[in-house]
Every structure is written in structure tokens, then in C-alpha cells.
């Protein structure tokens, strides 16, 4: 039985009690991402602070336990952090998710997100775990442009 390896308690917790869920004002940019294979959708907003830190990330959408939990964990990891650090964490998460269960993730950096290493063994679910992170990366990049132009 490998189910428990994939659905670690921390994942199920975030799924049942997602953090930072709901769309909030104010925000710089809102994006809408979909997972073309399953139709899951995510609307996500990013607000950058004056110093370039991630002031808020809020979201709403439908998705499986993995995508919901991963988005929740992501908000914990990026809100309040300098943007470059948040993006670097996202990069670490991406690498872990592409490792087919082989990564030995750094809990210092990835915190609760290390629980997703089990998911990385299931290639069809990797996209679920990345949905929130990809939306954040996209929104953050747009927000930087908005700020620069504004």
C-alpha cells in the first residue's frame, strides 16, 4: 500500500484546511491557470510590497487534493519573503517534483513541501503539485513588470 506515502498527513491537512485561500484585495496581478489534462482551474493573485517582497498571495479554484494542498503550502513558503527567495524556493520544489521520488529535499527550505516528494513518483500528478507554483511564478513575473512600468 503506497497510498499513505503519497498522501502524507501534512498534505491531507493542507487539503482539508487550506491556508490563505480566497481572493483578496489589494493585488497587483491576477492570473488564471488550468491543468489541460484534468480541467482543474486556479485563479491566483499576487501583491508585491514596496521592497519587492511578496506581500500577499490569494487564490481560488477547483482541484484535487494534491493541487489544493500544494498551493496552500506554497503560500506559506512565499508570503512575506523577498521575491527572489520565493522564486528560488519554487525552483527547488520544481526540481524535487521532477526527481521521480529520488530527491532528498532540504526541509530547511521547503518545509511542509517536502511531503510532496512521494507525489513526484507519479508523473501524472506532478502537474497537479506544480499548478499553484506555476501560477505564482507567472503572476510574480507580471507583477514585476507592472511595478517597473508603473
Amino acid at each position, binding site marked *: *500500500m*503506497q497510498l499513505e506515502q503519497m498522501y502524507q498527513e501534512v498534505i491531507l491537512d493542507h487539503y482539508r484546511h487550506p491556508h490563505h485561500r480566497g481572493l483578496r484585495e489589494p493585488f497587483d496581478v491576477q492570473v488564471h491557470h488550468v491543468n489541460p489534462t484534468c480541467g482543474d482551474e486556479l485563479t491566483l493573485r499576487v501583491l508585491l510590497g514596496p521592497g519587492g517582497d511578496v506581500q500577499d498571495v490569494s487564490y481560488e479554484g477547483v482541484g484535487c487534493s494534491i493541487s489544493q494542498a500544494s498551493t496552500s503550502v506554497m503560500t506559506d513558503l512565499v508570503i512575506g519573503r523577498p521575491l527572489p527567495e520565493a522564486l528560488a524556493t519554487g525552483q527547488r520544489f520544481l526540481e524535487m517534483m521532477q526527481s521521480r521520488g529520488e530527491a532528498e529535499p532540504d526541509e530547511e527550505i521547503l518545509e511542509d513541501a517536502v511531503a510532496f516528494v512521494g507525489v513526484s513518483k507519479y508523473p501524472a500528478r506532478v502537474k497537479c503539485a506544480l499548478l499553484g507554483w506555476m501560477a505564482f511564478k507567472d503572476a510574480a513575473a507580471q507583477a514585476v513588470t507592472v511595478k517597473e512600468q508603473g
Partner: protein
Amino acid sequence: MSVQTAGSLDVARIRADFPILRRTVRGGRRLVYLDSGATSQKPVQVLDAERRFYELHNAAVHRGAHQLSEEATDAYEAARATVAAFVGAAPSELVLTKNATEAINLVAYAMSNAATAGAEAQQLVLGPGDTVVVTEMEHHANLVPWQELCRRTGATLRWLSVTDGGRLDLDGLATVVDCSTRLVAFAHQSNVMGTVNPVAPVVRRAREVGALVLLDACQSVPHLPVSVPDLDVDFVAFSGHKMLGPLGVGALWGRRSLLEVMPPFLTGGSMIETVRMEGSTYAAPPQRFEPGVPAAAQAVGLAAACDYLSALGMERVAAHEHALVGYALDRLAEVPGVRVIGPTDTEARGGTVSFVVDGIHPHDVGQVLDDLGVEVRVGHHCAWPLARRFGVSATTRASFYVYTDQTEVDALVDGVRRAQDFFGVS
């Protein structure tokens, strides 16, 4: 090949023909393959036929005068005849393609190419003011090519809607299909809900307004007796890999009078009559639509699949799936929190069941099933608008075939209950 006991399939003997069914998944679990709607498994008879072609007769079809080329060409044309006969059609009206998607695109592109082709093709030209009609339950393969045809030509796409019960809303026929309609394209059987659509009323209405009819038979030809002459449509598309045949081969049947006036789609070798630098003329159908070295080994494999199915008897195949789906609907109805998307009776319905489980995302249902060795498909099943129609982003789909038995339906139902336990929603 299995010997039949009267009126039903000897599933145990059939299963012995499918090598993959002997493997296990996820750490030793029996493989319960309930994803035949996506692609079927292949019996050893098909694999052997394909291999024999390569080991004995491989050569470029229609491109040589030597013995191997003669044999390869004979094998390919005999395969075409077998596939055509399987749907009651003439070989000269059967175009072999790489899959059903190509078959449908072929018609869509021939129609837009008609604009710059000769006078006889003018009857196929579309433009602003014209409409193409599909349905809300189409597979993307029978929806997006028509969206794109409309984009290329300026025509407008319309669609018939689907009832809450998963049936085509025929009330819309009279208004949606009108004098502007040039083509009606719809699925014979829904790949999501199993609904078997009535062909006759659609054809009748199309004839009234002078529209052509294309039937996406991807989910009917493998599962039901299908007779092209009886259907009286203009085009029928289906895929080999969903009917025990190899990947990489599909078919388009077209009415001779239409194929003859259709300009080519893919162009290249073997579809020409004469070629000069200044311009070319084209061969008669079906060659006109089969440029390049064709997938002869796959065609031979598909013919072996047709032979296999014919030996089983398509009436029996349909009866077997009908019985299974009835059983599955009954068993799923016993599970609280399970909602079937599509018909909940077995009337005009094939062996495909899609459902949602309250409180659990289909991806998670699928994951639990997979962990138990039960292979179903989760998602929108390439029919995203239909999912939206039912207000869901995705469903879990089980689809049956000749090798599916009742214990596999039981495994499905047990798996759904296990998912409810695991996610604490039961």
C-alpha cells in the same frame, strides 16, 4: 481464439489472448484495465499479424514491382478490404489514416481546400453565413477541427445540447440545423457517458436542409455492430487502436460521390496522377488521401483485429458490454455519494460509465483505484465542454471491452468505497 458459448463471450478464454493482462501493477496487484475507451489492449493474433508482415513481406506499398512490394501491397489492400467489410463498406470508399483525428481533419481540410480547387469541389466550399453543427458531447477530435474549419472559412459553429440525463437534445434539431447548415458532425457513442446517439433523426434533418453528416464512430465501431450503408451518413471516422488493433492506424469511410470531388488533404508520393514542377493532378480515392509510405503493418494488424472481433461476433460483444454496464450501474447505485454522469439506464448505451464521488476529486479517486490495480481514466476525457455542461471539472471513467469481466466491476466498486474511506467521506 475463444470458442463461443451461446449468446455470451467466454471472457476467460479471451483474456488468455491478451499478454498484457497477465502482468501486475503497483507492487504485485492484478491489472484491472478499465480504460479501453482510451485505447484497447491487443490480442496476440494482432501482434503476430503485424510482426509477420515485417518478418516476411515488408516493403513500400504501391511503390515497386518486385515480389516483396507485390506482397506488401496485396497485404495492405486485403487489410483495407477486411476493415471495409467489417463496417459493411466498399474498400474503394475506405481511406486509411493514422487515427480518427486525422480522418476527421481530412474532411475539414478538404472542405477548406475546396475554395482553391476545381469546379467539382465547389459544392464543398464554406463561407460566412454557413454553419457547421456539432454537439456538446463531442470529443475534442470532433470539435476542434470544426472550430478551426470555421476560423479558416468564416463559417459559424453551432451545437446541439445535451440533456441532464446525458442524451442528445433532439428538440434543438429543427432550429440548430437549418438551411445555413453544411455539415453535421456528431459522435455515434459518447466516449464519456456511453450514450449511443440516434443517427436516423439527425440524418433526416440534415437531408432536409442539404447538409452533410459525419459520424464519429470511434466508440461505436469497436463495441457495436455498425453497418455503414444502414447509417446513411456521408462520412464515418474510427480508430484502430480502440478496437484491438495497433496504434497508428485509423479509417475514414466516405461516400464515393463525395470522396471523388474532394480535393486532397496531405499531399506527396502515391497520391498523384501526374506531377510537373508547374502543377500536379491527383489519383482517384482512396489513394488520393493516402500520401507517403503507408502504415501497412498496422493496417494488417487492424484487419486481424477485425477478424478477431468478427469471430467473437459483434452482437455478442455488444451484449457482453451491455450486461457489464448494467451490472456496473447497479453496483455503483448502491454506493452513497456516487453520481453517474450520463444515462443511468442501459437503454441505447455502451460499456462506459463516468461518475463523480461527492467530496473526492476524480484525480484522488483515480489514485486510490490505481493503487489497487484498477486502471480508470480521470479528467475531462477530451470532452471538456461536456464536463462544463455538467458543472464538473472532471470525472472518473470506467470503460469495458471484450476482456472485461464482472470481478473487475466489483474491483472498481470496492475501490470507490476504499477511496471514500481513505478520504473520510463515507
